[in-house]
């Protein structure tokens, strides 16, 4: 077991290596790139399943392995650790990410078959898969943050995969910058946590920052009002999750991210990366709940309200969208809101249960949408589709399964059980009944918009210019993943039913007992009846409104336009959030940038020029002194010496007699000196 944990690094590294190799391959090496990526991820999947089995065997124990990465200063603060953890949470995330990822990789073989940059696509996908796998098993703040940024980078690269489209390039930029806002706050939280606890490791045999000793110390420190330090750090970390998981008010990037290829939307912007925020909250859950017993911590209240509002807000916006992927994008935001809500009110098990089921059925829905788009020559507007059930039976059935799972159709579908768990937890929440009603409203809206989409796309007769002749069912390489995901969307629900809460027990380290009687308890069905009523109401309204319209072969006006008092434009325009940002944050930043530019251009550049001028003047002065005084003086002295030397050299004329004459004259002078003056 311990030796197994040591080898877990292979799980993220294999896809990373595949990405590196694919990046070096030429563009024509399509088979190599795809084979490497799929092969490495399949290996990772096998290793993940083995890890999962290992944790299961050991009864949900936590196993760690880490090593000192490098040392850049003295003591604990100067050491970077690379560490990973194998516990129920990371094991189930590993299996989910690698499994869903593998299916989507295979699906991409068919979906991207005609793309010129197939090799690059698989390179980026593998990079993403490696980073995401690294993220979920990381046991250190540094490793988590690095992988967190790497998945952000992969998301940016893949949203902008078709960067020749201006919309895609803009969407990639928007996604990157918007999540960066959250990441900045997230990073502050990490640094604060590290600085205060002195350790980067989540778990470290008692001294990690999520373990009792550190948490107690954090709870003792009050920052403001009655918020303890652990709550403030939790709030900062939550801001990172808000950015990554598209919660209000940083949700704006996620719908635009649908500009990327559909498998990317399925993998990154539905199943895995956007759930990283939820995963992060689940990972640091001990920090969030640390505090006095029996008191709901304020950060959990924030999470619950943000999640609940996001769930309803995004579901309401999804109601009035026309783009098949955009509807699913808002649906994803809404479901992420549910996960946050479940996490805040019910704990790790509730939130992560929904995360896992949602990953399956939302990936399924996106891949189904991709199949539709692929078949109907890139048409994404649901008003111009229609009647597709006749030509695409497999896509129709699997999409239907996904839709029923998403709406929470009773009993048979996984979404029902995870959504029920969240609603139960919300109902039992002692603080406020608000989130429960928000969740219930979301259930109704979800059922409505999914029915609307389903009826308009698959029901009725074809509209618009999608001719029936060109529509074809997708190849098996695309439909098989759909079928697998559809069966998973049904099956995953049964590991978390009230009768056999296996997943909850697994995540919380307890044994699950099969007890059918719990399934029929009044507390289960009392609430379930209300939520089922909401589901049926939503579906019924959807059917009534759209069935007749879908049957007619021409494009109709949306009945939503009859909603009272400007509600429809508000929904269509997504409550003008983008416009509000466009007129508040963007001008403010542009103004700031303008003034920074001015400052740079005039003030700082002026100072620089002044310094340059002063330097130039000094240099010119120095040059003149050198040339006019030092050089000239030296030159004159040299010239004089040379002249005199020349003159003296004339005496040396080679005439022996002249030399002798000098000697004689000198002799005469000496004698006369001696004679007249020297002999006193």
């Amino acid at each position: 077991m311990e030796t197994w944990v040591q080898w877990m690094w292979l799980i993220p590294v294999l896809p990373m290596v595949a990405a590196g190799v694919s990046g070096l391959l030429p563009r024509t090496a399509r088979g190599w790139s795809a084979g490497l990526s799929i092969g490495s991820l399949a290996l990772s999947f096998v290793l993940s399943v083995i890890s999962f089995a290992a944790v299961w065997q050991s009864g949900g124990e936590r196993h760690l392995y880490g090593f000192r990465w490098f040392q850049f200063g003295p003591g604990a603060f100067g050491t970077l650790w690379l560490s990973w953890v194998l516990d129920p949470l990371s094991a189930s995330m590993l299996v989910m990410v690698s499994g869903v990822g593998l299916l989507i990789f295979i699906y991409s073989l068919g979906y991207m078959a005609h793309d010129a940059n197939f090799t690059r696509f698989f390179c980026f996908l593998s990079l993403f898969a490696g980073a995401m796998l690294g993220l979920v098993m990381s046991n250190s703040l540094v490793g988590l943050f690095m992988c967190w940024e790497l998945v952000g980078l992969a998301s940016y690269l893949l949203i902008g995969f078709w960067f020749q489209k201006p919309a895609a390039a803009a969407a990639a930029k928007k996604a990157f910058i918007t999540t960066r806002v959250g990441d900045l706050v997230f990073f502050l939280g990490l640094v604060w946590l590290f600085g205060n606890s002195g350790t980067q490791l989540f778990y470290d045999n008692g001294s990690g920052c999520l373990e009792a000793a550190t948490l107690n110390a954090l709870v003792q420190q009050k920052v403001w009002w009655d918020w303890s330090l652990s709550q403030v750090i939790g709030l900062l970390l939550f801001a990172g999750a808000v950015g990554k998981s598209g919660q209000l008010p940083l949700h704006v990037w996620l719908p635009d991210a649908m500009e990327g290829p559909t498998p990317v939307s399925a993998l990154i912007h539905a199943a895995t990366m956007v759930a990283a925020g939820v995963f992060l909250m689940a990972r640091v859950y001990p920090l969030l709940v640390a505090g006095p017993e029996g008191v709901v911590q304020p950060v959990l209240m924030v999470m619950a309200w943000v999640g609940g509002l996001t769930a309803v807000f995004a579901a309401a916006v999804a109601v009035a969208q026309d783009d098949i992927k955009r509807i699913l994008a808002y649906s994803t935001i809404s479901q992420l809101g549910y996960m946050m809500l479940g996490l805040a009110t019910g704990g790790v098990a509730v939130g992560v249960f929904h995360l896992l089921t949602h990953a399956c059925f939302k990936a399924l829905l996106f891949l189904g949408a991709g199949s539709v788009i692929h078949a109907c020559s890139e048409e994404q507007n649901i008003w111009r589709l229609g009647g597709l059930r006749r030509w695409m039976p497999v896509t129709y059935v699997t999409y239907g399964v996904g839709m029923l799972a998403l709406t929470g159709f009773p009993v048979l579908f996984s979404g029902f059980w995870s959504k029920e768990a969240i609603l139960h937890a919300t109902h039992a929440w002692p603080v406020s009944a608000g989130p429960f009603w928000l969740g219930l409203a979301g259930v109704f809206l979800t059922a409505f918009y999914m029915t609307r989409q389903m009826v308009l796309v698959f029901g009725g007769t074809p509209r618009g210019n999608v001719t029936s002749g060109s529509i074809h069912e997708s190849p098996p390489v695309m439909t098989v993943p759909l079928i697998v995901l559809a069966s998973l969307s049904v099956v995953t629900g049964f590991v978390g039913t009230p009768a056999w809460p296996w997943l909850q027990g697994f995540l919380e380290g307890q044994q699950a007992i099969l007890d059918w009687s719990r399934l029929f308890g009044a507390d289960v069905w009392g609430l379930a009846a209300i939520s089922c009523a909401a589901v049926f109401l939503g579906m019924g309204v959807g059917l009534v409104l759209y069935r007749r319209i879908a049957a007619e072969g021409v494009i109709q006006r949306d009945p939503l336009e009859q909603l009272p008092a400007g509600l429809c434009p508000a929904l269509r325009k997504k409550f003008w959030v983008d416009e509000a940002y466009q007129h508040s944050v963007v001008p403010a930043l542009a103004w700031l940038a303008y003034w920074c530019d001015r400052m740079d251009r005039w003030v700082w550049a002026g100072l620089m020029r002044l310094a340059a001028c002063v330097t130039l003047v000094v240099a010119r002065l120095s040059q003149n002194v050198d040339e006019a005084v030092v050089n000239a003086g030296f030159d004159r002295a040299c010239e004089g010496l040379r002249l005199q030397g020349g003159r003296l050299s004339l005496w040396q004329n080679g005439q022996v007699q002249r030399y002798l004459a000098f000697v004689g004259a000198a002799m005469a002078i000496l004698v006369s000196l001696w004679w007249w003056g020297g002999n006193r």
Partner: protein
Amino acid sequence: MSPLTGYLVLSAALFATGLAGVLTRRNAIAVLIGVELMLNAANLNFVAFWRYGAGGPDAAGLVFVLFTIAVAAAEAAVGLALVIAVYRHYRTAHVDEVKRLRG
């Protein structure tokens, strides 16, 4: 005028004559002759001072002169050999034309 003064005057005249010959003659042989004259002026001084000056009982002055004559003979031999070498090289024995060492 004592005999010593007369000898000294004669010696000085001889020396001046030799010097004038050395400094003014163009022919190298003539220059050597001048040098011989100057040497002999010095020899005359040795003998004069030995005979009339502070000379001792021994024949120191005479011995000096004999040495000087011997050295002068050697000098004359070397000087003439040099003159012949110069003549062979420059095809002239005129000292004013031999000025390769001009600065």
